[in-house]
C-alpha cells in the first residue's frame, strides 16, 4: 500500500510539469495581445505597448518565457500579474476562500445528494421518488445565476429586511455563514448527479442476494440500508465527489461573482481573459495537484470499501 502511494506521488511530478507546459503553451497560443487587453476600449499608444511588452518579456520566444517561469517557480516565485502584484500572494488569499467554498459545497452535495437519493431509493416508484426527480430536473435546467440571485434576494435581503440576519448577502466578512448560500448554489447540479447516482445504485443493490439475505435474517431496515447497501453504493459516489472537487474550485466563477467571494474561479477566469500566463499556470498547477491527491484518496477508498480491490 505505502509503495503504491509513493509511486503515485512520484508520478505526480511529470504530470505537474506536463500540465504547466501544456497550459503555458495554450495561453501563449491564444490570439489577443495581453497588453491590448489591459487597455480596455481605448487603444494604447503603440510605443507604450512596446515598452510594456518588453517589461513583461512578452517579446521573447515561447521556450524562453517558459524557462523564465520555471526557473522562478523553482525558486518559489510564481511571477507577477500585469497589475504588478505577486501571484503567490494572490493565490494564497484566494485559495483560502475557494477551499472554504468548495468544502462547504462538497459537504452539502454529499449530505443533500446522498440523502435525497437514499430517500428516493427507499420510496422507489412512489410520490417522493417522483418529487425528488422533478427537483433534480429543476437543478439541472435552471442556471446558477438565477438560483443564486433568487436565493440571495429571498434568504439574504428579504430575511434581513424582516429582521432575521441569517445569511449574509455577499462577501467574506461574516465568516462561515457567508459560505452557506453560495455553497448550496454551487452544489446545485452536483446534487442532481449524486441524487440520481445514489438512488440508482441503491435500487440495484437492494435487489441483490446478500441484501435479501440480510433482510431475511431479520436485520432492522436501517441497518440493512446503512451497513450493507449504502457501503456498497459508495464507490460511484466518492468517485463523483473526487472528480467534482476541481470543478467546484476552478469553475465557481458565477457563484463567486454573485456572492462577491474573491476565489480562484474568478481569478482564473479573468487571468485567462487577460492572458496572464503566470497566474493561469500557477492556479492550474495547484488544481492539478489537488486532483492528483483527491483521486489518490478516492482510489485508496475503493480498497477500503471493497476488500476485493487491492493495490500491490
Amino acid at each position, binding site marked *: 500500500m505505502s509503495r503504491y502511494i509513493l509511486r503515485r506521488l512520484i508520478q505526480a511530478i511529470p504530470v505537474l510539469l506536463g500540465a504547466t507546459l501544456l497550459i503555458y503553451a495554450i495561453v501563449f497560443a491564444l*490570439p*489577443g*495581445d495581453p497588453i*491590448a*487587453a*489591459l*487597455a*480596455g*476600449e*481605448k*487603444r*494604447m*499608444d*503603440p*510605443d*507604450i505597448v*512596446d*515598452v*510594456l511588452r518588453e*517589461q513583461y518579456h512578452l517579446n521573447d520566444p515561447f521556450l524562453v518565457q517558459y524557462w523564465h517561469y520555471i526557473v522562478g517557480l523553482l525558486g518559489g516565485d510564481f511571477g507577477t*500579474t500585469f*497589475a*504588478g*502584484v505577486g501571484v503567490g*500572494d*494572490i493565490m494564497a*488569499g*484566494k485559495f*483560502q*476562500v475557494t477551499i472554504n467554498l468548495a468544502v462547504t459545497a462538497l459537504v452539502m452535495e454529499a449530505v443533500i445528494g446522498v440523502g435525497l437519493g437514499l430517500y428516493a431509493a427507499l420510496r422507489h416508484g412512489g410520490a417522493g421518488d417522483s418529487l425528488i426527480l422533478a427537483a433534480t430536473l429543476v437543478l439541472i435546467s435552471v*442556471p446558477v*445565476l438565477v438560483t443564486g*440571485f433568487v436565493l*440571495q*434576494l429571498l434568504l*439574504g*435581503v428579504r430575511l*434581513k*429586511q424582516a429582521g432575521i440576519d441569517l445569511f*449574509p*448577502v*455577499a*462577501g*467574506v*466578512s*461574516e*465568516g462561515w455563514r457567508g459560505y452557506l448560500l453560495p455553497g448550496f448554489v454551487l452544489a446545485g447540479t452536483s446534487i442532481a448527479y449524486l441524487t440520481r447516482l445514489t438512488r440508482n445504485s441503491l435500487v440495484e443493490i437492494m435487489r441483490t442476494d446478500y441484501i435479501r439475505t440480510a433482510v431475511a435474517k431479520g436485520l432492522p431496515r436501517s441497518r440493512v440500508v446503512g451497513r450493507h447497501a449504502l457501503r456498497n453504493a459508495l464507490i460511484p459516489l466518492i468517485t463523483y465527489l473526487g472528480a467534482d472537487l476541481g470543478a467546484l474550485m476552478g469553475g465557481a*466563477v*458565477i457563484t*463567486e*461573482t*454573485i*456572492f*462577491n467571494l*474573491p476565489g480562484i474561479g*474568478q*481569478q482564473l*477566469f*479573468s487571468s485567462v*481573459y487577460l492572458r496572464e500566463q503566470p497566474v493561469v499556470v500557477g492556479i492550474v498547477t495547484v488544481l492539478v495537484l489537488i486532483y492528483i491527491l483527491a483521486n489518490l484518496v478516492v482510489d485508496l477508498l475503493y480498497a477500503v470499501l471493497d476488500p476485493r480491490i487491492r493495490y500491490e
Partner: protein
Amino acid sequence: MRVTKGARLTAGAALLALALAACGNSASSGGGTASGDLPVRMELGEPQKLFHPGDTTESEGAEVLAAVFAPLVGYDENKQAVDEVAESIESKDNRVWTVSLKPGYTWHDGAKLTAQNYVDAWNYAANQDNAQSANGFFSRIDGWADLNPGEGKTVSTKEMKGLKVVDESTFRVTLSKPFSQFKTMLGYTAFYPLPKVAFGADGRITEEYARKPIGQGYFQFDKPFNKGTDQSIDLTRYDRFPGKKPKFTKLQFKLYTSSETAFNDLAAGNLDIHDSLPPSAIARAKSEFGERYLDQADAGVAYIGFPMQYNKTYANVKVREAISMAIDRETIADKVFSGTRAPADDFINPLLDGYRAGACAVCVYDPLKAGEQYTANNGPKTLELGYNSDGPHKEWIEAVANSLRANLGVEVKVKPFEKFAGILDELDEKTYGGMFRMGWAIDYPSAENYLTPLFSTIAIKTGSNYAGWSNQEFDALLAKGDSARTQEEGLKFYQQADDILIREMPYIPVYFYRTNGAFSQNVKGVKIDLLNQIKWTEVEKAG
C-alpha cells in the same frame, strides 16, 4: 476612455474585475461603535491597477483617486471649469498657460504642495519609458514628442520643454499649438500632481506609494491597499485640507464584482451608495428606494461604427443613413435599458454645452424611409454587427439587428467578441468587415472631447478613431475651435465640425448614457457630478 463603468462585466459574462479577500474588515458589523465613526460605504468595482494618477484611466481607480486628490479645476453647475487648487489659470493666446496655486494645500504627509509637484508628475506620465496609460493626455504640451520618440528609441530627456516652474506656487505650460479647452481638461485624473515621496531612488513611482497614495485631497488612505486580497478601501478625512471638506470623517469603498450583488447588499443595509445600477435592478430600485433613487444624465455616448478606412461596403453615406433611421432608439432605451439610456440625437451629449436637440435628423426612427433609401442605394444584402460580450451589450445589439432585419430586409449576423480589444485587433488587421459597437465616456467636460479623440485624422493612430474616417474640413474646424479666443467662439467651430459628422455619419449615435443609483437611509445629499463621481462635500450622514 473611462469605459469600465459602461463596460461593467455582467455576472454571467466575463469577469474582468475581481474582488478579493479573506480578511474581513467590514466595519458594518461593528455594533458597539458610535455611529459617528461608521463610514459612508460606497460601491466600487475592482480597480484594474494600483493607484497613481498617470496610470489610472479607468472609472473605478479614478473614483478612488478623486477622493484622495484635489484637482486644479472642478466644474460648476453650468459645466464651466472653476478653479479649485488653482488660484488662476490664464492665457492670452491659448498657447502659453500660467497656472498659479492657492496657498495652504499640503500633502497627507504634511509636505507643502508646490508647482514642482505638478511638473514632476506630468513629465513622468508623459515619458514613454514609464508606459503610463494617460500618456496621450500630455501630447498637446510642447516637448511631448521628445519624451515619445517612438518604438525602440531611447528617450534623451526627462522633461518637456513646455513645462517650466516659475516660482514655488506658479508654473507655465506651453502647448505646441493653441488649445482653448486646456483649462477644462485640467480637471482630469491624469493632471493630478505627485509628491516627492512618490518617486523611488530610480526615479520611478514606488509600489509602496501606489498601494497607499499620498494625495492633497480631502481623504487619505488608512492603510496600503492589497490588491487581490482586500475587499474594501478605507479612507479618513484629512483635516488639514484647506478647501471645502466633507461633513463626515470616514469613507469606505466596498469592492463588488457584480452590480446586481451590490444592489442586493444596498437593499439589505450593508451599503450606503450605489451609483451604477444595472437595468435589471431599475424597477426594484424605483419602488423600494423612492426618493433615494437617482436618475440623471450621464455624459457617455454609444455608437455603431463602420470600418470606413478599408471597407467599401459602407462607403455610401445614404446606406449609413438608412441604417441609422432603421434603428428604433426610443424603444431600445425604454425596453432594453429600462430607461437607463436615452435615445441619441447628436454626436455631443446633452449634458454639455454645444449639444443641439434633434441635430441629427437621421437619428430619428423612420422605418419606411430607411427601407426605401436602403433599397434605392443598393445597400448590402448581408450585414455583420460585432460587440464585445464582456459588457452589457448583447441585448441592445440583438435589438438593433432585429430592427435592421425587419426594416431593411437584410440578413444580419451578430458577432460576439471576447473583449473589445478583439474588435480592435481585427480592425487593425483590416480583416473585420462588419459594423461594431463603440462607447465613449468623456475625460473632461468639453464638446471637443466628443470630436478630436474619436474622429480626427490624428486619432487614427493615437486616439480612438477606430472607424479610420478622415475629413480635412473636419480637422480644420477642430483646429479653429482649438485656437479660438473665447469658449463661445470655440464652441461655434466645434458645432460646425459636429455638423460634418452628422452629414457624413462615420458612426451612428445610438444612445446617451444615464447614471442610475440609489442610496441608503444612512446618508443624504448624494449628488453625482459630470465625471460620474460622487460630490463628497455634499453628502451628509442622516440621523
